[in-house]
């Protein structure tokens, strides 16, 4: 099996019984899957469990995958359905903003080698604030933001996954960014606050 095999090729080989192909597919999508689900359930262990369920369902339905489509679109569609099914049945506990900020700190990927301790702390704080803001916006907005900016999917791909017109996805992205900007500004992350504080002698 070639290292550069496409997702569709790996899916085909996995369907034909290649364990190595399936393992490679899981390796490629493990992190995106866990992160995608985590944004909605806000529990690392639960996100991993649901991702495991997602991978099993993907394997069980590999014979329905149409190779003319992008594997990632199909994969995230399956994950989304699993997440929605879970959220329909289970009510999540309401989190305080402090807890959300703490979640945002989990595994904070900061550039430790080139940054000073103050910069690292600032980056962590910003990441936590962004994570908390993301948890506050409407779920459908959060969904498009995660798919677009976290998973790097294009607008037509997101539209395919969500079953929405491409224009609606664009509108959702625009409104989501506006809402995030508003929430961050509320919390003092806006440029105006910075300007004011820098003007203070």
């Amino acid at each position, binding site marked *: 099996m070639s290292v550069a095999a496409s997702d569709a090729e790996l899916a085909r080989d996995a369907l034909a019984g290649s364990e190595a192909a399936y393992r490679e597919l899981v390796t490629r999508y*493990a*992190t995106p899957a866990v992160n995608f689900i985590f944004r909605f359930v806000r529990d690392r262990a639960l996100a991993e469990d649901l991702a495991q369920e997602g991978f099993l369902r993907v394997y069980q339905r590999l014979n329905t995958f149409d190779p003319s489509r992008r594997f990632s679109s199909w994969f995230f569609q399956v994950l989304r359905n699993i997440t929605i099914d879970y*959220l329909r049945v289970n009510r999540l506990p309401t*989190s305080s903003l402090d807890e959300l900020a703490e979640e945002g700190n989990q*595994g904070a*990927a900061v550039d430790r080698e080139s940054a000073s301790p103050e910069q690292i702390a600032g*980056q962590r704080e*910003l990441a936590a604030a962004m994570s908390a803001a993301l948890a506050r916006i409407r779920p459908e907005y959060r969904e498009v933001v995660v798919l677009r900016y976290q998973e790097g999917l294009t607008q037509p791909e997101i539209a395919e996954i969500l079953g929405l017109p491409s224009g609606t996805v664009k509108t959702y992205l625009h409104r989501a960014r506006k809402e995030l*900007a508003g929430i961050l500004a509320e919390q003092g992350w806006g440029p105006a606050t910075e300007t004011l504080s820098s003007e203070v002698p």
Partner: protein
Amino acid sequence: MDRKQLERWLAEEEGGHDDAADAAFAQLFTAMPRLEPRPAFVEQAVAAAWQWRARRRRLVAFGWAAAAVLVAAGALAAYLASPTLAPPFIKVLAFVSGRAVPWFVSYATVAMSSWLTLVHVGGVIASALVTPARVAALVGVELFGLLAFFALQRIAGAGRFGDAQV
């Protein structure tokens, strides 16, 4: 993910430059921390899939074996029992079909004529009641119902992730 990236994005957003804001936000978001699944995650996922595959293969094999045994047993039973069972079976079949088919045909004829009578009566009543205004009202009510159903679907769709909201 640093303050400068954030400020650049917020400035583009403030200035209404949608494409630039999109690019700046993408750059900012790429630097967001990502969770790494636990090391055993991949192996667990592969093991679960392969366990399911083995179970399914066993089930399919068992199904085929059971079908083969049933067919063989049926054929053997038919072969052994045919000399004694065949004539009575054919007699019963001929008797039943000889009684049942005429009864079915007459029943269907009666049912059909009753149905045609009902259709005629319904047609007379409808022609007496239907006017353009009433038809328009009926179509209006149906359209309203459809729109209400569509709106409910949209509302239900918007609430799918409701539990995930803080």
